[in-house]
């Protein structure tokens, strides 16, 4: 067991393909193979205003040419790692999400805040700085970590929903009939 090899960095990480774009190209090949050519990924490269590289990943239903934006990948220009995934905004209601966080506000928090502010005015030295550690679960430092998180991103409900909506054009006729029936009721 090496003591000096960076933890979390696997041999595969230093072999190509290792850039986020290359890994996404692998994902695209896999999509085309598994869907028998019906679905593919379109990788749109661009640069943000603050000079980061952005790859927006779109799913495409080839028979209809319909597309859906799935998520974005962001890293510094010419430095592929660390890289983060920014998932598509989830617009589904909470009752349809497999998990979600409920934020609760304690009844006394506003009062506590006012008391703390008054105390701070009277005694500035009493101010306690509170630090909150924000964890971005979508950041990857290495290619192997990015592969895993990319798989997680593709497994999000909102992504599955977008893909299913793309491919469900065959059911639209029956869906329209349902609408007709609903409208006639």
């Amino acid at each position: 067991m090496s003591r000096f090899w960076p933890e979390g960095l696997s041999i595969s990480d230093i072999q190509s393909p290792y850039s986020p774009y290359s890994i996404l190209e692998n994902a695209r090949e896999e999509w085309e193979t598994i869907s028998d050519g019906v679905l593919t990924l379109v990788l749109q490269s661009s640069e943000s205003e603050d000079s980061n590289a952005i790859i927006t990943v779109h799913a495409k239903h080839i028979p209809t040419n319909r597309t859906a934006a799935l998520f974005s990948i962001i890293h510094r220009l010419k430095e592929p790692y660390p890289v983060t995934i920014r998932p598509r905004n989830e617009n589904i209601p909470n009752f349809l999400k497999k998990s979600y966080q409920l934020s609760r506000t304690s009844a006394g928090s506003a009062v506590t805040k006012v008391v703390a502010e008054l105390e701070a005015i009277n005694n500035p030295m009493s101010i306690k700085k509170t630090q909150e550690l924000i964890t971005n679960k979508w950041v990857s430092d290495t290619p192997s970590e990015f592969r895993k998180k990319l798989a997680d991103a593709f497994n999000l409900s909102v992504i599955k929903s977008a893909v299913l909506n793309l491919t469900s054009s065959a059911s639209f006729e029956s869906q329209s009939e349902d609408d007709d029936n609903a409208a006639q009721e």
Partner: protein
Amino acid sequence: MAATTVKMKNEAGLARMPPLSRIVFWNVKRKDLTDAVCALAKSTAADVIILNENSVSSSKTLCALRQNVAGDFYIPKPASEDRFHCFCRNSALDLSEIHSGFRTSVRKYKFENQMFLLVLLHGLDIRNYDDEARRSFMQDLMRDLKFIREDKENNKLILLGDFNLNPYDRVMNSAAGLNAMMTRACAAKGTRQHATKKYDFYYNPMWSLLGDNTKGPAGTAYDTSNQGPYGWSMLDQVVLHHSIIPFFNKVEILTEAGEYSFMDKNGRPDAKNASDHFPISVDFSGGHYE
């Protein structure tokens, strides 16, 4: 078919007899305004009604439109984005969704042998999102529009929706933003260069409806809190690629429909009985100048 024939004069004073296509957009703020929507559909004779933030199921709204306005209303399919409820009564217009993006739904819009792309969008609101999030959304939107233009090989974009921005906000008119100009003449040049890139001009007709010196209200939403420093805002907008200008007829802010008034006694959107946004109606006309 709701398409009507109207006689108009273009800027050069030439009469024309084009078919007209009318789209009405309304952010109903998650309220059940079905009766008002029906009145709106009836009074405007719109081909297309698009509701944003409609808490009523689309099938229920469709049912009401069919019963109270016209039996030929239908919901264009496919459509995946529930953020926009779209009702159409002219199947020739198509309006099927070809792309769903970040808070956007792009529809085919066939009119006068042209294929336009109608981009329905709902920007991030000022109350719940900070400047950074809103700026990031607009950058996402720009990337989405670029993708749509390239992937669909069509730059005839019509952007319609609750932008949650004013026509004068920087991102609306900067070259790398929407590049949306105030007048037809400004946009007529087609493109402008910024750094090394050329950017297509868009035309934002909402500029014409701002302020006191207009026929209707000064904007589509009213807010004097710290998030609405101007009082009136023109959050609901239509913005057109310069190539569509010849087909654009007019845009109006609607304050009433039949017996329904969307305005309170101060002339502002009646948030209590209707929505805190006024609806807007956009007319396109085609045909040849006589």
